[in-house]
């Protein structure tokens, strides 16, 4: 019963954001929704932007813990640019607070693919980040994404650093992706492993060329009257 009620609340919040977003009375609902996103590992950028806007309109009602949670969720949405989209709406004085400075540094490391520095900094801020379930996995997914854009074959050490896994944990991670994501493992010169990532148009540019002269279906429909 409680779960049903919960689902109903989140449906209503999304509706509110779509239909009546410029409304100071929904602020509390939006704040609750942030907490709900954190606890049930959901995410809604539009609802969070709506809340940040309301904070912008009425700065005295801003709740920094909520803002911090929004930013962490945004970080987890990478490679999407949600983190900077949120920062655009947060006043400079607020951004200079300690926890936000940390989050900005973390974002900076991720944006510039400095994964070692990132995980080191995460280790120093466990309390801040462990409050948001799914953080670790989300960043791992981002790391894998960036590697997939760049590498056809990535050395084990590079992958290890990117996802902050070693030894057995790394082996299990590899096993999972070999079984489910089309990865393969090779041996390079020496004894280190090479992970072969599945081909896509970004790490296999020749795949991209074939797609470039495609015509969208919508455009083709424009000549249907002529063809008849």
């Amino acid at each position, binding site marked *: 019963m409680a779960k049903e009620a919960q689902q109903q609340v989140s449906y209503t919040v999304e509706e509110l954001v779509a239909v009546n977003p*410029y409304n100071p009375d929904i602020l509390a609902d939006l704040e609750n929704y942030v907490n709900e996103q954190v606890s049930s590992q959901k995410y809604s950028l539009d609802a969070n932007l709506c809340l940040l806007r309301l904070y912008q309109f009425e700065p005295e009602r801003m709740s920094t813990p909520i803002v911090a949670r929004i930013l962490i969720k945004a970080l987890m949405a990478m490679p999407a640019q949600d983190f900077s*989209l949120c920062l*655009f709406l947060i006043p400079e004085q607020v951004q200079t607070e300690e926890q936000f400075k940390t989050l900005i540094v973390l974002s900076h490391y991720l944006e510039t693919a400095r994964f*070692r520095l990132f995980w080191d900094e995460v280790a120093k801020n466990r309390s801040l980040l462990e409050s948001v379930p799914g953080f670790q996995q989300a960043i791992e997914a981002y790391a894998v994404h960036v590697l997939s*854009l760049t590498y*056809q074959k990535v050395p084990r050490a590079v992958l290890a650093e990117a996802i902050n896994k070693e030894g057995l944990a790394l082996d299990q991670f590899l096993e999972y992706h070999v079984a489910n994501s089309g990865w393969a493992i090779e041996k390079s010169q020496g004894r280190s492993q*090479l992970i072969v990532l599945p081909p896509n148009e970004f790490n296999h540019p020749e795949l991209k060329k074939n797609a470039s002269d495609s015509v969208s279906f919508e455009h083709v429909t424009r*000549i249907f009257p*002529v063809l008849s």
Partner: protein
Amino acid sequence: MAAYDADSSAGGDLAYDPNFVPDSVKTFVVHLYRQIREKNVYEIHQMYEGSFNRLTDRMFRESPWPTAEAVAPYVDGDHVFCLLYREMWFRHVYARLTPTPKQRVESWDNYCSLFGVVLHGVVNMQLPNQWLWDMVDEFVYQFQSYCQYRAKLKNKTEEELQLLRHFDQAWNVYGVLNYLQALVEKSNIIQILEREKEGLEQFTALDGYDYQGGSNVLKMLGYYSMIGLLRVHCLLGDYRTGLKCMAPIDLSQQGVYTNVIGSNISTIYHYGFANLMLRRYGDAIREFNKMLLYILKYKQYHQKSPQYDQILKKNEQMYALLAVCLSLCPQQKLVDENVSTQLKEKYNDKMTKMQRYDDEASTVYDELFSYGCPKFITPSAPVLDEPLTNYNQEAYRLQLKMFLFEVKQQQLLAGIRSFLKIYSTITVTKLAQFMDVDEATLRTILMTYKHKMHSTDNDGKIISNADIYFYVDDDTVHVVEAKPTKRFGDYFLRQILKFEEMNSELEKVQLD
């Protein structure tokens, strides 16, 4: 310029009597009123664009027009006409004079009344699109101007502070956004555009006008309010929501938004800027290019128009933003030759500097961004206790800071570009040596390039803005040359449609 208070007839220049209605104005309002009642849109447009501006130039260069109360007797005291007249009256004051604080508030009240009447659905007029666009455009402009005004507290008189305290609802951000939103909703414009896509409604073909005796006012105000919302959200720094507000309008096609040049420019400028901030450089470049080409071709036809200065200003701003986009994402092939020539003339040196990614580059990015960006606002109500400061630059400073931070993160990519252009294969070790960094750093730079040059669209799909295609195989970087693609499919489609049009034109010709 002197500020005229509509209420006081003493004080200020004794030559201006707000209640004196010269004959030419009498004639003007009587005719305009009649044309509006008879729904002669063409004549209304002539009077609105032509006569009004001619009379302004002749008699009201430095003073306001007679008040609405003064002209009311000549138009049967028509309530709606007076609201329209007053809107033009305030717009004139903003354009040629400086509005007093009280006038700013009164203008807000007028918009509330005017939009209120329209939203109640009782308006039966047809007005030219130019006028309806100007209303929305001016509404947003006055909001922006008011936010700037009330964020400068340092030198305000006690009287001005009292006014701010008392009229604290004037131009409040909730009100502005909700009016625009209400116009969008009440007009059903989104549904109209959807139905048009399915062929169930004619909107664009009729340029939004109603040929069945109805009114175009609510519909068109709703349409233009979508662009108004894009603009307001850009001023607040919420680019994603701004773009979402525009989603119902298909910018890849001609539409009603292209028919009034002011709306065309405002749409593309803000759309392009929002995409720039969202790192969708390719889209931004395409849109700016389109608009700059259009202005190049057609600006001569607008030389006499009162919007000409605005057109030129936006033109220059878009060149600056285009220079910025191309420095971050060198995709010259997206830019038309004519635009490219103009761009080189204006910004060749600066673009070379920006592509160097050193401290000097940062200064140039700062300069061009500051010139090209919108006038960001702080939407919250001012805190009127001591100490009083000026904080009207805060919003701009935040957006600039964020932008320059992004530029800095892309600093090392220029080096990568220059090397990857020369080599088809190079080891990570060698490339690191050339760039004077260690291998691990080089690997992060390669990944940064990939991440920064690929943006995500609203559905989470990855779009490439990359100018260089490469991949890494263990410890070797392979660069694939991008051959320029000839878009045959697109070309054939366009020609098919063009010839079909020609054929049907020919079929209409009757030979005796």
